[in-house]
């Protein structure tokens, strides 16, 4: 699928889709969306890029192996779940900031949990896809 149209489009689609996936991630607290869907969307962005330019080019634009995102995301989710334990609350209790942050709104520990999910999903999906395409 190395048409010039697709190739050119993919260069613009990659940042757009990544941005959109972050939007979906942030939207997910009260509305449809969230870490899982956002993560899938972000990995689709990379998959489209690899369709157009070949898997080696896609690997080049990432400075590290996507598998590294798995423990990072898990750790983020784990810490945000376990954080309340240090304040004497139970596991997974939502902790919220007193004041709202501009644009995003009030930030709570749920956002970090979701971000963790987002990273794990990207890591797992891309690792699977890269491993399969290496075997072909």
């Amino acid at each position, binding site marked *: 699928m190395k048409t010039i149209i697709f190739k050119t489009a993919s260069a613009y689609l990659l940042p757009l889709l990544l941005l959109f996936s972050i939007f979906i991630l942030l939207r997910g607290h009260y509305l449809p969306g969230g870490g899982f869907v956002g993560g899938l969307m972000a990995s689709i962005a990379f998959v489209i890029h690899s369709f157009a330019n070949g898997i080696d080019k896609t690997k080049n634009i990432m400075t590290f192996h996507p598998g590294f995102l798995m423990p990072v995301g*898990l*750790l983020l989710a*784990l810490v945000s779940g376990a954080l309340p334990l240090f304040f*004497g609350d*139970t596991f997974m209790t939502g902790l919220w900031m007193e004041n709202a942050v501009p644009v995003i709104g009030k930030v709570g520990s749920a956002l970090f949990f979701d971000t963790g999910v987002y990273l794990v999903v990207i890591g797992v999906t891309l690792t699977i896809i890269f491993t399969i395409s290496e075997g072909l």
Partner: protein
Amino acid sequence: MNNPYIVLPVIFQLFIAVLLMFSWNSKNIQKLISVTGSLIALVISILLLVKVNTEGIQIMQAGGWAAPFGITFVADTFSSLLVLLTAIAGLAVSVYSVGSIRNARVKFGYFPIFHLLIMGLSGAFLTGDIFNLYVWFEIIIISSFVLLTIGGEKAQIEGAIKYVTMNLLASVIFLTAIAILYGLTGSLNMADLSLRVAEIENRGLVNVTAVLFLVGFGIKSAVFPLYFWLPASYHTPPPAISAIFGGLLTKVGVYALLRVFTLIFVPDAFLSTVIMVLAIFTILSGGIGALIQNNMRKVISYLIICHIGFMLAGLGVYSSLAIAGAIFYLVHDIVVKTNLFMVSGLIFKFKGTYSMRLLGSFYKEHPKLSLLMAVPLFSLVGIPPLSGFWGKLLILQGAIEQTNILVVVFVILGSFLTLFIIARLWSEVFWKDGPELPEKKHIKYFNALKPLKRRAMIGSILFLSLISLGIGFGAEWVMRLSIKIAENLMDPTQYIQAVLGN
């Protein structure tokens, strides 16, 4: 009593897994993290058991959502005892893996997945929510799929297909049962369900749901007639993985049976007869299956089935004494079965085969090791005062008290079958003069291993043998604990009060 920290045994395992994933490429650091992590997990679970034993049932409402709406974690004596046993078996297998797991498997993430499995097991024991129990079961089976197939040998894949198919079927049945139960009561909290199920007038529907749970858990714990996936798959992965499977995976099904059939569904005459008959056939089919096998690991796999029958018989009799026996036997069985698979792996490292016909003269060549291996073997038979004896004694006492002659007869028959099988295994593997075995090229023999690896394998067997001896000689303490657990199971008001408040 509210205690946010009872979830620590679960999240600590996840933490170890994350640490292990960060050091994906360095196998020595992974081994170090796994062993020290398992040690800390053991300390945590000992603290949990002590706390629960002195201060009563501890609960945690995840996210601060009160029961019956949120997910509740409950640590009563039963759960925390099993969490402790999981930690003990986890530590032993982790040390054993240092010696026996090949580097290729470590490279594909053996250790992280192993700790995720332990996390799933601890979670299943601690949860007080039936749907959450299903989720932990899923975590357990997904991790076990990976462990079973990691390395990708032909025999492993073949075993894994049977294992995966049957376990997915069991999950579907379990999930269906949960859905029906939710439709009947509108609740998923086990304590709440206990109250609501008792009020349902349509007993027929309740019994159907109960049987669905029985089938679902029955497949997972390898109860007759759906046990055949177990001996078809447990002998295929490396011995360290078989050890954790044989020790804990089927036992989590037994735990679920004991919990659900005392707390939610109190068996009526029909249901306890069904459980009893299943138990009898499980004892028979496991025992007879083990008789005709030649592969050492298959013999042990069939013995697992046979002894699941003992615990089920304890539940079938349904008196606090018999259930105490089942719990005592569960405690003993987790330690011994884990140990036996490790023993078989060690013998393989010396001889290069699992076939009992080809093995022999192990006692002549390694007398000290053979004496060490005799401990789990004879504990399994239940020679007094070793650990297997006391559990069976309690089950028999309970059955005689209820004049349940059938269970008495078959438990004794099962014990004699076990005795015969172990005696045969002992004489074939240890006493008989074995033929000279040809050196196989693809096996790394014990003497070619580094001293640290050798010590790790023998040390973990020694550790579990000591625990077995401890259970046998400290039987009074374990017995008091299991009788206390059984009384709490038979009369769940304490449990319900702790979860729901009043």
